[in-house]
């Protein structure tokens, strides 16, 4: 059995691990083993991050780049949810739709979202339309799959119970099938947000002219490692916030359903 260790000890160890990590990083950089141009110290990165909060780089400040990224993300993600969830539900409820859409969907699923970049640029340009398509390509499949699973694998006894109680069909959908698939849909949204956010970064690295990804590419071209790392931190923070928010929603629903583990 893994031996239990108490809370203070794990806190000390955790802090120790962090300090060792940052110390190693600092040591490699400050001692010149790795040229500072390639690996700046943690302090230099932090400095640059704060600096970028109100200094323009690649046309905008870091918050402005983030806002541009987030706008694209929000559109792509919402579009994926609005199209994907109903599609998934309908596929789960109506077998014929499942059988028609599934082969197309399975084919498209194996195209890495990022491979849509050339068509996205060709069809919608590099402003906001192109990146939205790529985010959509990343965020769409989990929405569909989880809504489908949620709709398909409803406990048949619930439906039988509803039928036994003489529930009309429309009410079976709104009061049994839909609520039963909510937990699965929410977890789908969480996966979807993660993949969408990641696809956005990829899209911006390649085609955009604003956004954090673009800022990082410019940083790379200017050999500004601190800028690249600041971008990574910003992307990580936003991704973390998104995930935390959706995880919170997931927990909330699980708790209300008494599904806590």
């Amino acid at each position, binding site marked *: 059995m*893994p031996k239990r260790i108490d809370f203070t000890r*794990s806190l000390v160890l955790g802090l120790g691990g962090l300090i060792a*990590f940052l110390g190693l990083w600092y040591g490699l950089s400050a001692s010149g083993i790795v040229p500072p141009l390639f690996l700046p110290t943690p302090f230099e990165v932090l400095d640059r991050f704060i600096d970028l909060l109100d200094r323009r780089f690649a046309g905008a400040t870091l918050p402005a780049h983030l806002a541009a990224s987030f706008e694209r993300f929000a559109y792509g993600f919402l579009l994926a949810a609005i199209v994907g969830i109903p599609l998934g539900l309908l596929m789960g409820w109506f077998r014929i739709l499942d059988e028609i859409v599934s*082969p197309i969907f399975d084919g498209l699923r194996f195209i890495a979202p990022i491979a849509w970049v050339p068509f996205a640029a060709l069809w919608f340009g590099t402003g906001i339309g192109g990146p939205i398509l790529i985010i959509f390509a990343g965020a769409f499949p989990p929405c569909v799959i989880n809504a489908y699973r949620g709709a398909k694998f409803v406990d048949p006894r619930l439906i039988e119970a509803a039928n036994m109680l003489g529930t009309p069909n429309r009410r079976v959908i709104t009061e049994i099938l839909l609520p039963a698939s909510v937990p699965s849909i929410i977890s789908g949204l969480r996966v979807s947000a993660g993949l969408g956010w990641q696809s956005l970064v990829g899209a911006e690295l390649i085609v955009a002219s604003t956004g954090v990804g673009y800022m990082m590419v410019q940083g790379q071209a200017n050999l500004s490692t601190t800028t690249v790392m600041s971008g990574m931190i910003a992307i*990580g923070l936003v991704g973390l916030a998104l995930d935390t928010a959706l995880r919170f929603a997931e927990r909330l629903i699980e708790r209300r359903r008494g599904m806590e583990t």
Partner: protein
Amino acid sequence: MPRRLQIGGATILVLVILWYLSTTVFGLIAPGRFPSPQATIDALGHVLFRGYAGGTLIEHIFNSLRLVILGFLVAVATGVPLGLLMGWNRTAEALINPVFLIIRPIPPLAWIPLAILWLGLGDSAKILVIWFAAFVPSVINTYAGVRTIEKPVLEAAAMLGTPRLRFIREVLVPASSPMIFTGLRLSLQASWTTLVAAELVGAFYGLGRVLNVAQQDLYPGMILVGMIAVAILGWATTKALGKLEMRALSWNQAAALAGRG
């Protein structure tokens, strides 16, 4: 032939006919936006026999596949042991987890500019970035796999006096292997996405390079060929991993069922 296959086949057939009609017969879609079947076949012939973007299709495929497999293997060879260690040893977990929590939210693609800055456009940068991308899912799922082992199984191994190495090989690894394979699948997906993105950002060969050049040349036929090639390779490697999983987990009824379904 099962009904599912019939309807699926019919759907694909209808789509291909629609594609042909709308591009070639009625000219509803401009050839500069989406290629006709003929243009796609021409592009395929072009890259297959005469070569495009610095090589023939086979050469590009070989190059991309080689990098994905190399990066994936490096990630798995480092990620799975680390996950086992973190799952089993509380001290290691407490030490490493905080560092991991910081690195984890950074999407794999966000490492691309840094990797290019460090190592340029060659193979080593691609392998580095695939490693970063595929490492995280391997670690997390292995770690979770160890944690979900039922306590009596561990106690039974202890009671039978199982020595450490044998315990790792015959109890710890097989008991967590269903989750380890989930991690490997996610790692493989991440490897492909990352490689294509990295090649799109900058490369000398590879399918991403084909997509990139085709986009600049406004060559829709070639874009489609590139996308289909990426999808087929992603599908084939996933299938190969699935075969391996079925074989390794033949003892696991749930996994066998999931693999079949």
